[in-house]
């Protein structure tokens, strides 16, 4: 569980943006697991994550994301 802290913060963001308090993220979570996570709300999530971590992702990075764990990797890269 390398990303425990990160997953907790991301869970908070996902709950707020998707307006669903039952969301609990793991590294393996994908859009298929969460009903509200569609292509439109995905954009909103990306922008919310950028704001929260005060960073910007390139379109190339975003398009590689397949699961929440991939987001964690990108965020860690920005932080280091």
């Amino acid at each position, binding site marked *: 569980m390398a990303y425990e802290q990160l997953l907790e913060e991301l869970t908070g963001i996902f709950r707020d943006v998707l*307006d669903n308090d039952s969301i609990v993220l793991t590294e393996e979570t994908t859009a298929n697991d969460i009903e509200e996570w569609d292509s439109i709300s995905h954009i*909103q999530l990306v922008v919310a994550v950028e704001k929260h971590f005060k960073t910007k992702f390139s379109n190339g990075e975003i398009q590689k994301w397949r699961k929440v764990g991939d987001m964690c990797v990108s965020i860690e890269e920005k932080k280091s």
Partner: protein
Amino acid sequence: MNTPVIEFNRLKKNLKKDLSSQKEVRIALLADTASQMLTQAIKGYGIEQHVHYNIFEADYNQIERQVFDPASELYAFAPQFVLIFRSSEKLVKEFYKKDVPAKEAFASHIAAHTAQLYETITERTGAKVIFSNYTEINDGVFGNYASKVKSSFVYQVKKLNLLLMDLSQSYKNFFLNDIASLIQQTGYHFSFDVKPYINAEMVYSIDFLPYVAKNTYDIIAAISGSFKKCVILDLDNTTWGGIIGDDGLEGIQVGSLGLGKAFTELQLWVKELRKRGVIVAVCSKNTDEIAREPFIQHPEMVLRLDDIAVFVANWETKVDNIRHIQSILNIGFDAMVFLDDNSFEREMVKQGIPDITVPELPEDPSEYLLYLRQLNLFETASFTEEDGARTQQYQEEAMRTTLQKSFTSENDFLESLDMECEVKAFDAFTIPRIAQLSQRSNQFNLRTVRYTDAEVTATSASEAHHTLSFSLRDKYGDYGLIAYVILHEQEAGTLFIDSWVMSCRVLKRGMERFTLERILAVAKEKGFNRVTGEYIPTKKNGLVREHYASLGFSDGGNNLWHIDTGSPLTEQPIFITVK
């Protein structure tokens, strides 16, 4: 500077609310880019304002198909409003495909196509059509030299925006959603985000969507008959800088003095609204005669008495006075805007009159005008030359109507404020402020004895004097030191009130009664059985003429007033606690 806009996520969450009891407005939304989130923002903004926007959102990039096909979903939906959003990002691509002659005719061509869209829609429905205009992007092909080149995008897009305005003047039901101005206000880098654009074909950033939603709401509301008709101005530190009652005609800031420029520019703007037909009223805690003086005498005032439809300056609550103004104008509270620098007054008015609009003016008066402009409070859907003549009619009406006092539940309001007052003898920290109050206060000043710093210091050290300073705060903020009292022994058993001074900012909160209780407590503690006060009338302190009488003192003649330390006080609840 704080923005007037609600964030997108909150608008989206609004969509879960039950709308069945609210007024329905049928809207069709057609766009040449992805519009799902725009639709969510507009709908959510409507809910915020208690309106149910029933929106038909056409599929992506279907403007022409929906409009020109008589059997389209657009017409089946029977909208009251048709919103058409077209983007410069799409427009520029179309533009680049053209040869030079077609580029030179591009704006005219798009304008003619727009007119055709409008005419087709209005032939088939009674809907009002609201077109967005275009972001005036400089595509960097010609740089600044684009102005000289008819076939540049820069030239054509600016021309197109002008042609769209001309169309809106030719067609009654053609309205413009001025996105270009919104983008100028917020900045293109705020309004446009490459990620939503590249990944989802969205031309507005998530943070910009609420601005578009609000602007769209404003237009629809105005067309539907809901708009502001009146602006009510506070005077001191709102219309001019400083306090007319204390600073006098020469001391208030308007024109060249101090921050005067900021107030002058606000007045110029208000005057322009007045010429457009917005009614201007004044509501101020002041003595009427003193409050009117700048409007008559001050050479640099822009607003004059004949600009003001109803002028109310007295010491009643603003809630009562605004009700009075409303009864003269006979318009809804929801058509009124109240401008006041004082957050206490704003809160009281908002609580007393929930329908009125009370902007949270910035702390710094230099920002008033910028802030008010971006709120777009005075959206309208009509204008005639006669609108400007309205003020005089209301002035006459005001002469006929007398002030009918409608007391609100003032006690409930005061109680809700959680007022706390720190009371203590003068000390090194409070002396400079006390000296300042002593020098400046004219209105709530019973004897108008002026003391310098050194004199205040001497008084505070004197055995024969007793001093009290009062610092007030409530749940909205700290007012600092707002009153002081100087007492000294006059004859055996009698304590004399040498000075009783209070800032007018804290009138009508029970401070007077609270202060009296503190004075009586000091008197008892020091073994006096009587307290004497004196009122020395000046040109400016008419406000406190009845001060001692209203507190239950007995008239001793010669403007002297007495009260026994043991006598019961008048029944009146106090909502200030000692800190």
